[in-house]
Protein backbone atom coordinates (compact mmCIF):
# COMPACT_ATOMS: atom_id res chain seq x y z
CA UNK A 1 0.00 0.00 0.00
CA UNK A 2 1.56 3.32 -1.04
CA UNK A 3 1.51 6.27 1.37
CA UNK A 4 0.43 9.67 0.07
CA UNK A 5 3.67 11.75 -0.42
CA UNK A 6 2.11 14.76 1.36
CA UNK A 7 1.35 12.69 4.44
CA UNK A 8 4.88 11.27 4.33
CA UNK A 9 6.30 14.82 4.30
CA UNK A 10 4.12 15.83 7.26
CA UNK A 11 5.10 12.76 9.27
CA UNK A 12 8.78 13.40 8.61
CA UNK A 13 8.48 16.98 9.83
CA UNK A 14 6.64 15.99 12.99
CA UNK A 15 9.26 13.32 13.75
CA UNK A 16 12.11 15.75 13.27
CA UNK A 17 10.43 18.29 15.51
CA UNK A 18 9.99 15.79 18.30
CA UNK A 19 13.57 14.59 17.98
CA UNK A 20 14.99 18.05 17.95
CA UNK A 21 12.92 18.99 20.99
CA UNK A 22 14.17 15.94 22.89
CA UNK A 23 17.79 16.27 21.87
CA UNK A 24 18.30 19.91 22.36
CA UNK A 25 16.99 20.32 25.84
CA UNK A 26 19.37 20.48 28.79
CA UNK A 27 18.26 20.88 32.39
CA UNK A 28 20.25 22.82 34.95
CA UNK A 29 19.27 21.99 38.53
CA UNK A 30 20.37 24.63 41.00
CA UNK A 31 19.60 25.44 44.61
CA UNK A 32 18.21 28.86 43.76
CA UNK A 33 16.65 30.37 40.66
CA UNK A 34 19.38 31.29 38.16
CA UNK A 35 19.23 34.50 36.17
CA UNK A 36 19.61 34.49 32.37
CA UNK A 37 23.12 35.90 32.67
CA UNK A 38 24.12 33.06 34.96
CA UNK A 39 22.62 30.48 32.60
CA UNK A 40 24.54 31.99 29.70
CA UNK A 41 27.70 31.80 31.76
CA UNK A 42 27.14 28.09 32.32
CA UNK A 43 26.51 27.56 28.62
CA UNK A 44 29.77 29.33 27.77
CA UNK A 45 31.79 27.29 30.26
CA UNK A 46 30.55 23.98 28.83
CA UNK A 47 31.22 24.00 25.08
CA UNK A 48 29.30 20.75 24.68
CA UNK A 49 26.08 22.59 25.49
CA UNK A 50 26.37 24.87 22.48
CA UNK A 51 23.55 23.19 20.56
CA UNK A 52 21.33 22.73 23.61
CA UNK A 53 18.56 24.89 24.98
CA UNK A 54 19.05 25.30 28.75
CA UNK A 55 16.20 25.49 31.19
CA UNK A 56 16.47 25.88 34.93
CA UNK A 57 14.94 23.84 37.75
CA UNK A 58 15.25 24.61 41.46
CA UNK A 59 15.99 21.96 44.10
CA UNK A 60 17.39 23.11 47.42
CA UNK A 61 18.40 19.54 48.46
CA UNK A 62 21.61 19.87 46.47
CA UNK A 63 22.68 22.60 48.92
CA UNK A 64 25.10 24.34 46.55
CA UNK A 65 26.49 23.99 43.04
CA UNK A 66 24.43 22.65 40.14
CA UNK A 67 23.65 19.58 38.03
CA UNK A 68 23.52 19.68 34.25
CA UNK A 69 21.46 16.94 32.61
CA UNK A 70 21.41 16.44 28.84
CA UNK A 71 20.56 13.31 26.82
CA UNK A 72 21.34 10.57 29.29
CA UNK A 73 24.41 12.32 30.67
CA UNK A 74 24.82 14.16 33.93
CA UNK A 75 27.48 16.56 35.17
CA UNK A 76 27.21 16.60 38.95
CA UNK A 77 28.91 19.59 40.60
CA UNK A 78 26.84 19.81 43.74
CA UNK A 79 27.96 20.07 47.33
CA UNK A 80 25.74 17.10 48.18
CA UNK A 81 27.69 14.74 45.94
CA UNK A 82 31.00 16.02 47.30
CA UNK A 83 29.79 15.30 50.84
CA UNK A 84 28.66 11.82 49.78
CA UNK A 85 32.10 11.14 48.31
CA UNK A 86 33.62 12.39 51.54
CA UNK A 87 31.50 9.85 53.40
CA UNK A 88 33.02 7.11 51.25
CA UNK A 89 36.57 8.31 51.86
CA UNK A 90 36.22 8.42 55.62
CA UNK A 91 34.82 4.88 55.53
CA UNK A 92 37.66 3.57 53.43
CA UNK A 93 40.54 5.14 55.32
CA UNK A 94 42.36 2.47 57.28
CA UNK A 95 44.88 2.78 59.99
Amino acid at each position, binding site marked *: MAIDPDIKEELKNILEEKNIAKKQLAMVVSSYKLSDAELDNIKKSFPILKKYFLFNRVDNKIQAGFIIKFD*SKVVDLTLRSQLNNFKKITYEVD*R
Partner: protein
Amino acid sequence: MKLIDEYLKEIEKDLKSKKLRIKTEEVGIIEEVKDGVAILSGLDNVAYGELVEFNSGVLGYVIELGEDKVGVIILGEYLNLEAGSQAKSLGFTLSVPVSEKILGRVVDPLCNPQDGGSKIRSEKSYPVEKVAPSVVYRKPVTAPLQTGTKAIDALIPVGRGQRELIIGDRGTGKTTIAIDAILNQKNEKVICIYCGIGQKNSKMAAVVNLLTKNNAMDYTVIVNASASAPAALQYLAPYSAMAIAEYFMDKGKDVLVVFDDLTKHAWAYREISLILRRPAGREAYPGDIFYLHSRLLERACRLDEKYGGGSITALPIIETLEDDLSTYIPTNVISITDGQIFLQPDLFNAGIRPAINVGISVSRVGGTAQTKAMKSVAAKLKLDLAQYRDMAAFSQFESELDEETKKFLNRGSKLTQILIQKKNQPYSLALEVALIWSATHGLLDDMPIAKINNFENQLVLRLTTKAKKWLERINKNKILTETDETELEKYIKETIAITR
Protein backbone atom coordinates in the same frame (compact mmCIF):
# COMPACT_ATOMS: atom_id res chain seq x y z
CA MET B 1 43.31 12.13 70.89
CA LYS B 2 46.39 10.93 69.08
CA LEU B 3 44.30 8.32 67.26
CA ILE B 4 41.85 10.92 66.04
CA ASP B 5 44.71 13.14 64.85
CA GLU B 6 46.16 10.26 62.86
CA TYR B 7 42.76 9.47 61.41
CA LEU B 8 42.22 13.08 60.36
CA LYS B 9 45.67 13.19 58.79
CA GLU B 10 44.84 10.12 56.71
CA ILE B 11 41.57 11.68 55.55
CA GLU B 12 43.37 14.88 54.61
CA LYS B 13 45.93 12.93 52.63
CA ASP B 14 43.24 11.02 50.77
CA LEU B 15 41.25 14.17 49.98
CA LYS B 16 44.29 16.04 48.69
CA SER B 17 45.07 13.25 46.26
CA LYS B 18 41.58 13.38 44.77
CA LYS B 19 41.21 16.61 42.82
CA LEU B 20 37.78 17.81 41.84
CA ARG B 21 37.36 16.94 38.20
CA ILE B 22 34.39 17.88 36.09
CA LYS B 23 33.24 14.65 34.54
CA THR B 24 30.17 13.74 32.58
CA GLU B 25 28.47 10.62 33.82
CA GLU B 26 25.97 8.45 32.02
CA VAL B 27 22.83 8.17 34.04
CA GLY B 28 19.94 5.76 33.90
CA ILE B 29 16.65 5.29 35.70
CA ILE B 30 15.57 1.97 37.16
CA GLU B 31 12.45 0.76 35.38
CA GLU B 32 12.18 -2.79 36.75
CA VAL B 33 13.86 -4.74 39.52
CA LYS B 34 13.66 -8.51 39.37
CA ASP B 35 15.54 -11.03 41.52
CA GLY B 36 19.05 -9.71 41.24
CA VAL B 37 18.51 -8.07 37.85
CA ALA B 38 17.54 -4.46 37.17
CA ILE B 39 16.29 -3.06 33.87
CA LEU B 40 17.28 0.56 33.35
CA SER B 41 16.35 3.17 30.80
CA GLY B 42 18.75 5.90 29.72
CA LEU B 43 22.44 5.00 29.83
CA ASP B 44 22.64 5.63 26.10
CA ASN B 45 26.40 5.35 25.75
CA VAL B 46 27.24 2.62 28.18
CA ALA B 47 29.37 -0.31 27.02
CA TYR B 48 28.81 -4.02 27.59
CA GLY B 49 30.41 -5.14 30.82
CA GLU B 50 30.58 -1.68 32.35
CA LEU B 51 29.87 -1.06 35.99
CA VAL B 52 26.98 1.09 37.17
CA GLU B 53 26.44 2.38 40.68
CA PHE B 54 23.05 2.66 42.33
CA ASN B 55 22.06 5.29 44.87
CA SER B 56 22.66 2.95 47.78
CA GLY B 57 26.25 2.35 46.66
CA VAL B 58 25.54 -1.13 45.32
CA LEU B 59 27.27 -1.91 42.04
CA GLY B 60 25.73 -3.39 38.93
CA TYR B 61 27.29 -5.08 35.92
CA VAL B 62 25.86 -4.35 32.46
CA ILE B 63 25.01 -7.65 30.87
CA GLU B 64 22.38 -6.76 28.27
CA LEU B 65 22.13 -3.80 25.90
CA GLY B 66 18.68 -3.52 24.42
CA GLU B 67 17.37 -0.95 22.00
CA ASP B 68 16.36 1.48 24.72
CA LYS B 69 16.77 -0.59 27.87
CA VAL B 70 19.87 -1.84 29.65
CA GLY B 71 19.91 -5.05 31.71
CA VAL B 72 22.15 -4.95 34.76
CA ILE B 73 22.94 -7.71 37.26
CA ILE B 74 23.18 -6.38 40.79
CA LEU B 75 26.40 -7.21 42.58
CA GLY B 76 25.02 -7.09 46.08
CA GLU B 77 21.77 -6.47 47.93
CA TYR B 78 18.91 -5.62 45.62
CA LEU B 79 16.21 -5.33 48.26
CA ASN B 80 16.21 -1.55 48.66
CA LEU B 81 16.35 -0.52 45.04
CA GLU B 82 13.36 1.57 44.04
CA ALA B 83 11.94 1.94 40.58
CA GLY B 84 12.56 5.49 39.37
CA SER B 85 15.78 5.96 41.26
CA GLN B 86 18.96 6.79 39.48
CA ALA B 87 21.98 4.74 38.56
CA LYS B 88 25.15 6.21 37.15
CA SER B 89 27.71 4.50 34.99
CA LEU B 90 31.25 4.34 36.35
CA GLY B 91 32.90 4.28 32.96
CA PHE B 92 35.10 1.21 33.39
CA THR B 93 34.62 -2.52 33.05
CA LEU B 94 34.62 -4.75 36.09
CA SER B 95 38.11 -5.37 37.42
CA VAL B 96 39.47 -6.50 40.76
CA PRO B 97 42.28 -4.83 42.73
CA VAL B 98 45.21 -7.24 43.00
CA SER B 99 48.47 -7.13 44.92
CA GLU B 100 50.74 -9.42 46.94
CA LYS B 101 48.71 -8.46 50.01
CA ILE B 102 45.79 -10.54 48.80
CA LEU B 103 47.59 -13.74 49.83
CA GLY B 104 46.11 -15.20 52.99
CA ARG B 105 42.82 -13.34 52.61
CA VAL B 106 39.24 -14.45 52.15
CA VAL B 107 37.53 -12.16 49.65
CA ASP B 108 34.28 -11.97 47.74
CA PRO B 109 34.23 -11.79 43.92
CA LEU B 110 34.64 -8.00 44.05
CA CYS B 111 37.70 -8.41 46.28
CA ASN B 112 35.96 -6.99 49.32
CA PRO B 113 37.36 -8.62 52.43
CA GLN B 114 35.22 -11.28 54.09
CA ASP B 115 37.60 -12.19 56.88
CA GLY B 116 37.17 -9.01 58.91
CA GLY B 117 40.51 -7.62 57.76
CA SER B 118 41.37 -4.37 56.02
CA LYS B 119 40.34 -3.52 52.49
CA ILE B 120 42.65 -4.63 49.70
CA ARG B 121 44.18 -1.53 48.23
CA SER B 122 46.13 -1.64 45.05
CA GLU B 123 47.00 0.53 42.07
CA LYS B 124 46.74 -2.48 39.79
CA SER B 125 43.38 -3.88 38.74
CA TYR B 126 42.99 -6.92 36.59
CA PRO B 127 39.91 -7.20 34.35
CA VAL B 128 37.51 -9.94 35.31
CA GLU B 129 36.71 -10.78 31.69
CA LYS B 130 39.72 -11.28 29.48
CA VAL B 131 40.53 -13.09 26.26
CA ALA B 132 42.67 -16.18 26.87
CA PRO B 133 46.29 -16.09 25.67
CA SER B 134 46.57 -17.19 22.06
CA VAL B 135 48.72 -20.02 20.72
CA VAL B 136 51.84 -17.88 20.30
CA TYR B 137 52.03 -17.08 24.01
CA ARG B 138 51.85 -20.68 25.17
CA LYS B 139 54.29 -23.46 25.88
CA PRO B 140 53.48 -27.17 26.17
CA VAL B 141 52.91 -28.55 29.67
CA THR B 142 55.99 -30.40 30.92
CA ALA B 143 56.45 -29.47 34.58
CA PRO B 144 54.56 -31.66 37.06
CA LEU B 145 52.19 -30.35 39.69
CA GLN B 146 52.45 -32.67 42.70
CA THR B 147 48.97 -33.14 44.11
CA GLY B 148 50.17 -35.24 47.03
CA THR B 149 47.66 -38.00 46.26
CA LYS B 150 49.46 -41.21 45.25
CA ALA B 151 46.81 -42.39 42.81
CA ILE B 152 46.76 -39.11 40.94
CA ASP B 153 50.51 -38.43 40.79
CA ALA B 154 51.20 -41.97 39.62
CA LEU B 155 48.38 -42.76 37.23
CA ILE B 156 46.66 -39.48 36.29
CA PRO B 157 49.52 -36.99 36.53
CA VAL B 158 48.70 -33.31 36.43
CA GLY B 159 51.10 -30.80 34.91
CA ARG B 160 51.49 -27.08 35.52
CA GLY B 161 49.26 -25.32 33.05
CA GLN B 162 46.84 -28.21 32.64
CA ARG B 163 43.10 -28.24 33.31
CA GLU B 164 42.10 -31.44 35.13
CA LEU B 165 38.46 -31.95 35.97
CA ILE B 166 37.48 -33.58 39.26
CA ILE B 167 34.07 -35.10 38.73
CA GLY B 168 31.84 -37.28 40.89
CA ASP B 169 28.68 -37.57 42.94
CA ARG B 170 28.14 -35.65 46.11
CA GLY B 171 30.18 -36.83 49.08
CA THR B 172 32.82 -38.72 47.10
CA GLY B 173 35.77 -36.58 48.12
CA LYS B 174 36.16 -34.04 45.32
CA THR B 175 36.89 -31.05 47.54
CA THR B 176 39.23 -33.20 49.62
CA ILE B 177 41.43 -33.97 46.62
CA ALA B 178 41.56 -30.29 45.70
CA ILE B 179 42.38 -29.20 49.25
CA ASP B 180 45.08 -31.85 49.54
CA ALA B 181 46.60 -30.50 46.34
CA ILE B 182 46.65 -27.04 47.90
CA LEU B 183 48.19 -28.37 51.13
CA ASN B 184 50.91 -30.10 49.15
CA GLN B 185 52.13 -26.88 47.54
CA LYS B 186 53.67 -25.66 50.77
CA ASN B 187 57.29 -25.96 49.66
CA GLU B 188 56.67 -25.68 45.96
CA LYS B 189 56.37 -21.91 45.50
CA VAL B 190 52.96 -22.36 43.88
CA ILE B 191 50.28 -19.78 44.65
CA CYS B 192 46.90 -21.39 45.32
CA ILE B 193 43.46 -19.91 44.83
CA TYR B 194 40.37 -21.69 46.10
CA CYS B 195 37.16 -20.37 44.55
CA GLY B 196 33.98 -21.45 46.34
CA ILE B 197 30.86 -21.00 44.22
CA GLY B 198 27.54 -21.52 45.94
CA GLN B 199 29.13 -23.51 48.77
CA LYS B 200 27.76 -23.65 52.30
CA ASN B 201 29.31 -21.05 54.58
CA SER B 202 30.03 -23.79 57.10
CA LYS B 203 32.03 -25.68 54.50
CA MET B 204 34.02 -22.58 53.59
CA ALA B 205 34.71 -21.93 57.26
CA ALA B 206 35.97 -25.51 57.61
CA VAL B 207 38.23 -25.05 54.59
CA VAL B 208 39.67 -21.80 55.94
CA ASN B 209 40.22 -23.46 59.30
CA LEU B 210 41.98 -26.43 57.75
CA LEU B 211 44.26 -24.29 55.61
CA THR B 212 45.12 -22.01 58.52
CA LYS B 213 45.91 -24.98 60.76
CA ASN B 214 48.31 -26.35 58.17
CA ASN B 215 49.93 -22.96 57.51
CA ALA B 216 48.69 -23.03 53.94
CA MET B 217 47.07 -19.59 54.05
CA ASP B 218 50.43 -17.88 53.45
CA TYR B 219 50.26 -18.81 49.79
CA THR B 220 46.50 -19.18 49.31
CA VAL B 221 43.69 -16.79 48.41
CA ILE B 222 40.08 -17.78 48.98
CA VAL B 223 37.39 -16.24 46.75
CA ASN B 224 34.02 -16.96 48.26
CA ALA B 225 30.55 -16.54 46.76
CA SER B 226 28.50 -18.60 49.16
CA ALA B 227 25.08 -20.15 48.61
CA SER B 228 23.39 -17.08 50.09
CA ALA B 229 25.29 -14.68 47.84
CA PRO B 230 23.34 -13.16 44.92
CA ALA B 231 23.46 -15.15 41.69
CA ALA B 232 25.41 -12.31 40.07
CA LEU B 233 28.29 -12.77 42.51
CA GLN B 234 28.20 -16.55 42.11
CA TYR B 235 28.39 -16.00 38.34
CA LEU B 236 31.41 -13.69 38.63
CA ALA B 237 33.35 -15.56 41.31
CA PRO B 238 35.37 -17.89 39.04
CA TYR B 239 36.26 -15.04 36.70
CA SER B 240 37.51 -12.95 39.63
CA ALA B 241 39.57 -15.90 40.83
CA MET B 242 41.03 -16.26 37.34
CA ALA B 243 41.87 -12.53 37.25
CA ILE B 244 43.80 -12.86 40.53
CA ALA B 245 45.56 -15.94 39.12
CA GLU B 246 46.55 -14.03 36.00
CA TYR B 247 48.13 -11.32 38.12
CA PHE B 248 50.45 -13.89 39.69
CA MET B 249 51.05 -15.70 36.41
CA ASP B 250 52.15 -12.44 34.76
CA LYS B 251 54.77 -12.18 37.48
CA GLY B 252 56.19 -15.52 36.38
CA LYS B 253 54.71 -17.61 39.20
CA ASP B 254 52.91 -20.93 38.95
CA VAL B 255 49.33 -20.78 40.17
CA LEU B 256 46.84 -23.49 41.13
CA VAL B 257 43.15 -22.52 40.94
CA VAL B 258 40.37 -24.74 42.26
CA PHE B 259 36.78 -24.03 41.16
CA ASP B 260 34.38 -25.59 43.62
CA ASP B 261 32.12 -26.13 41.87
CA LEU B 262 31.22 -25.26 38.32
CA THR B 263 27.84 -27.00 38.49
CA LYS B 264 26.55 -24.33 40.86
CA HIS B 265 28.18 -21.73 38.63
CA ALA B 266 26.12 -22.99 35.71
CA TRP B 267 22.98 -22.89 37.89
CA ALA B 268 23.65 -19.24 38.83
CA TYR B 269 24.13 -18.30 35.18
CA ARG B 270 20.97 -20.17 34.22
CA GLU B 271 19.07 -18.22 36.86
CA ILE B 272 20.33 -14.88 35.53
CA SER B 273 19.63 -15.81 31.91
CA LEU B 274 16.10 -16.95 32.65
CA ILE B 275 15.32 -13.73 34.53
CA LEU B 276 16.61 -11.80 31.53
CA ARG B 277 14.17 -13.84 29.41
CA ARG B 278 16.89 -15.28 27.23
CA PRO B 279 15.78 -18.36 25.30
CA ALA B 280 16.14 -21.54 27.34
CA GLY B 281 17.84 -24.53 25.73
CA ARG B 282 18.56 -28.05 26.92
CA GLU B 283 17.82 -28.49 30.63
CA ALA B 284 16.76 -24.82 30.63
CA TYR B 285 20.38 -23.69 30.31
CA PRO B 286 20.98 -20.72 27.99
CA GLY B 287 22.61 -21.22 24.63
CA ASP B 288 26.03 -19.94 25.71
CA ILE B 289 26.52 -22.25 28.69
CA PHE B 290 29.47 -23.89 26.94
CA TYR B 291 31.12 -20.53 26.32
CA LEU B 292 30.58 -19.70 30.00
CA HIS B 293 33.01 -22.44 31.01
CA SER B 294 35.25 -22.55 27.98
CA ARG B 295 36.26 -18.90 28.22
CA LEU B 296 37.01 -19.42 31.90
CA LEU B 297 39.10 -22.57 31.54
CA GLU B 298 40.97 -21.47 28.44
CA ARG B 299 42.63 -18.77 30.52
CA ALA B 300 44.51 -21.52 32.40
CA CYS B 301 47.69 -22.07 30.45
CA ARG B 302 51.47 -22.20 30.58
CA LEU B 303 53.18 -19.11 29.23
CA ASP B 304 56.31 -19.09 27.18
CA GLU B 305 59.49 -17.76 28.86
CA LYS B 306 59.33 -14.65 26.69
CA TYR B 307 56.11 -13.67 28.45
CA GLY B 308 57.19 -14.56 31.97
CA GLY B 309 57.06 -18.34 32.03
CA GLY B 310 54.26 -18.52 34.60
CA SER B 311 51.38 -20.95 34.51
CA ILE B 312 47.86 -21.44 35.81
CA THR B 313 46.71 -24.98 36.58
CA ALA B 314 42.95 -25.31 36.93
CA LEU B 315 41.17 -28.01 38.92
CA PRO B 316 37.48 -27.46 38.18
CA ILE B 317 35.01 -29.58 40.15
CA ILE B 318 31.71 -30.82 38.75
CA GLU B 319 29.05 -32.66 40.71
CA THR B 320 27.17 -35.39 38.89
CA LEU B 321 23.84 -36.92 39.79
CA GLU B 322 23.59 -40.69 40.13
CA ASP B 323 27.04 -41.14 38.59
CA ASP B 324 25.66 -39.96 35.23
CA LEU B 325 28.38 -38.41 33.07
CA SER B 326 26.25 -37.95 30.00
CA THR B 327 24.27 -34.96 31.23
CA TYR B 328 24.74 -31.54 29.72
CA ILE B 329 27.18 -29.74 31.99
CA PRO B 330 29.53 -32.70 32.70
CA THR B 331 29.87 -33.51 29.01
CA ASN B 332 30.56 -29.85 28.24
CA VAL B 333 33.30 -29.46 30.80
CA ILE B 334 34.83 -32.88 30.02
CA SER B 335 35.33 -31.74 26.44
CA ILE B 336 36.97 -28.50 27.59
CA THR B 337 39.45 -29.89 30.13
CA ASP B 338 42.65 -31.86 29.51
CA GLY B 339 41.47 -34.88 31.42
CA GLN B 340 39.27 -35.92 34.28
CA ILE B 341 39.49 -37.66 37.64
CA PHE B 342 36.38 -39.77 38.24
CA LEU B 343 35.25 -40.37 41.79
CA GLN B 344 32.64 -43.05 42.30
CA PRO B 345 30.40 -43.62 45.30
CA ASP B 346 30.70 -47.46 45.04
CA LEU B 347 34.45 -47.23 45.49
CA PHE B 348 34.01 -44.72 48.28
CA ASN B 349 31.62 -46.97 50.13
CA ALA B 350 33.89 -49.98 49.62
CA GLY B 351 36.60 -48.14 51.51
CA ILE B 352 38.76 -47.10 48.58
CA ARG B 353 39.44 -43.47 49.40
CA PRO B 354 40.27 -41.45 47.35
CA ALA B 355 37.46 -43.09 45.37
CA ILE B 356 39.23 -42.67 42.04
CA ASN B 357 38.20 -45.00 39.24
CA VAL B 358 41.61 -45.37 37.65
CA GLY B 359 40.26 -47.20 34.65
CA ILE B 360 38.24 -44.35 33.24
CA SER B 361 40.16 -41.42 34.67
CA VAL B 362 42.40 -39.76 32.13
CA SER B 363 45.12 -37.17 31.98
CA ARG B 364 45.71 -36.03 28.44
CA VAL B 365 49.09 -34.63 29.39
CA GLY B 366 50.13 -37.86 31.09
CA GLY B 367 53.73 -38.96 31.30
CA THR B 368 55.24 -35.74 29.92
CA ALA B 369 54.28 -34.11 33.21
CA GLN B 370 55.79 -36.79 35.40
CA THR B 371 59.19 -36.89 37.05
CA LYS B 372 61.54 -39.69 36.01
CA ALA B 373 61.34 -41.18 39.48
CA MET B 374 57.58 -41.47 39.35
CA LYS B 375 57.55 -42.66 35.77
CA SER B 376 59.79 -45.58 36.65
CA VAL B 377 57.38 -46.92 39.25
CA ALA B 378 54.13 -45.81 37.65
CA ALA B 379 54.52 -47.83 34.46
CA LYS B 380 54.47 -51.16 36.26
CA LEU B 381 51.71 -49.95 38.56
CA LYS B 382 49.49 -49.07 35.65
CA LEU B 383 50.00 -52.40 33.94
CA ASP B 384 49.42 -54.46 37.08
CA LEU B 385 46.29 -52.53 37.96
CA ALA B 386 44.90 -52.88 34.45
CA GLN B 387 45.41 -56.66 34.57
CA TYR B 388 43.83 -56.77 38.00
CA ARG B 389 40.76 -54.90 36.79
CA ASP B 390 40.36 -57.36 33.93
CA MET B 391 40.49 -60.29 36.31
CA ALA B 392 38.59 -58.69 39.17
CA ALA B 393 35.45 -60.59 38.28
CA PHE B 394 37.28 -63.90 38.87
CA SER B 395 38.26 -63.03 42.40
CA GLN B 396 35.08 -64.67 43.59
CA PHE B 397 36.29 -68.10 42.45
CA GLU B 398 39.47 -67.95 44.49
CA SER B 399 39.73 -71.61 45.24
CA GLU B 400 39.35 -72.72 41.62
CA LEU B 401 41.99 -70.48 40.05
CA ASP B 402 45.49 -71.28 38.83
CA GLU B 403 48.58 -69.83 40.50
CA GLU B 404 49.26 -67.16 37.89
CA THR B 405 45.80 -65.62 38.20
CA LYS B 406 45.95 -65.79 41.96
CA LYS B 407 49.27 -63.92 41.88
CA PHE B 408 47.80 -61.17 39.70
CA LEU B 409 44.79 -60.82 41.94
CA ASN B 410 46.96 -60.69 45.01
CA ARG B 411 49.27 -58.07 43.53
CA GLY B 412 46.33 -56.03 42.31
CA SER B 413 44.62 -55.99 45.67
CA LYS B 414 47.87 -54.95 47.38
CA LEU B 415 48.35 -52.15 44.85
CA THR B 416 44.79 -50.93 45.36
CA GLN B 417 45.38 -50.98 49.10
CA ILE B 418 48.63 -49.03 48.85
CA LEU B 419 46.88 -46.32 46.83
CA ILE B 420 44.41 -45.69 49.62
CA GLN B 421 45.28 -42.50 51.44
CA LYS B 422 43.98 -40.64 54.48
CA LYS B 423 42.44 -37.30 53.79
CA ASN B 424 44.39 -34.06 54.35
CA GLN B 425 47.68 -35.96 54.43
CA PRO B 426 49.40 -35.30 51.12
CA TYR B 427 52.68 -37.10 50.45
CA SER B 428 55.84 -35.65 48.96
CA LEU B 429 57.18 -37.13 45.74
CA ALA B 430 59.79 -39.28 47.49
CA LEU B 431 57.27 -40.87 49.86
CA GLU B 432 54.88 -41.62 47.02
CA VAL B 433 57.64 -43.24 45.00
CA ALA B 434 58.79 -45.28 48.01
CA LEU B 435 55.31 -46.61 48.79
CA ILE B 436 54.45 -47.52 45.23
CA TRP B 437 57.88 -49.10 44.71
CA SER B 438 57.32 -51.38 47.68
CA ALA B 439 54.07 -52.67 46.20
CA THR B 440 55.11 -52.96 42.54
CA HIS B 441 58.28 -54.88 43.39
CA GLY B 442 56.32 -57.59 45.14
CA LEU B 443 57.65 -56.93 48.63
CA LEU B 444 54.10 -56.75 49.98
CA ASP B 445 52.77 -59.84 48.22
CA ASP B 446 53.04 -61.94 51.34
CA MET B 447 51.59 -59.39 53.73
CA PRO B 448 47.91 -59.69 54.69
CA ILE B 449 45.84 -56.78 53.40
CA ALA B 450 44.78 -55.70 56.85
CA LYS B 451 48.39 -54.96 57.77
CA ILE B 452 49.22 -52.81 54.76
CA ASN B 453 47.86 -49.61 56.29
CA ASN B 454 50.05 -50.19 59.31
CA PHE B 455 53.04 -50.91 57.07
CA GLU B 456 52.45 -47.66 55.23
CA ASN B 457 52.41 -45.61 58.42
CA GLN B 458 55.53 -47.38 59.68
CA LEU B 459 57.42 -46.85 56.43
CA VAL B 460 56.52 -43.17 56.30
CA LEU B 461 57.66 -42.80 59.91
CA ARG B 462 60.91 -44.66 59.26
CA LEU B 463 61.76 -42.69 56.14
CA THR B 464 60.95 -39.31 57.62
CA THR B 465 63.06 -39.97 60.72
CA LYS B 466 65.91 -42.25 59.58
CA ALA B 467 66.15 -41.60 55.83
CA LYS B 468 65.94 -37.83 55.60
CA LYS B 469 68.86 -37.67 53.19
CA TRP B 470 67.30 -40.27 50.91
CA LEU B 471 64.02 -38.30 50.82
CA GLU B 472 65.84 -35.05 50.14
CA ARG B 473 67.81 -36.63 47.32
CA ILE B 474 64.77 -38.01 45.59
CA ASN B 475 62.77 -34.83 46.09
CA LYS B 476 65.59 -32.76 44.65
CA ASN B 477 66.85 -34.87 41.76
CA LYS B 478 63.50 -36.48 40.96
CA ILE B 479 65.29 -39.61 39.76
CA LEU B 480 65.48 -43.10 41.25
CA THR B 481 68.95 -44.59 40.76
CA GLU B 482 70.02 -48.19 41.45
CA THR B 483 71.69 -47.20 44.71
CA ASP B 484 68.54 -45.39 45.79
CA GLU B 485 66.54 -48.54 45.07
CA THR B 486 68.82 -50.78 47.13
CA GLU B 487 68.73 -48.34 50.02
CA LEU B 488 64.95 -48.20 49.81
CA GLU B 489 64.69 -51.98 49.73
CA LYS B 490 66.65 -52.10 52.95
CA TYR B 491 64.28 -49.72 54.69
CA ILE B 492 61.24 -51.56 53.39
CA LYS B 493 62.48 -54.92 54.59
CA GLU B 494 63.21 -53.45 58.00
CA THR B 495 59.68 -52.01 58.14
CA ILE B 496 58.07 -55.27 57.06
CA ALA B 497 59.89 -57.04 59.88
CA ILE B 498 58.45 -54.76 62.53
CA THR B 499 54.95 -54.42 61.09
CA ARG B 500 52.42 -56.23 63.18
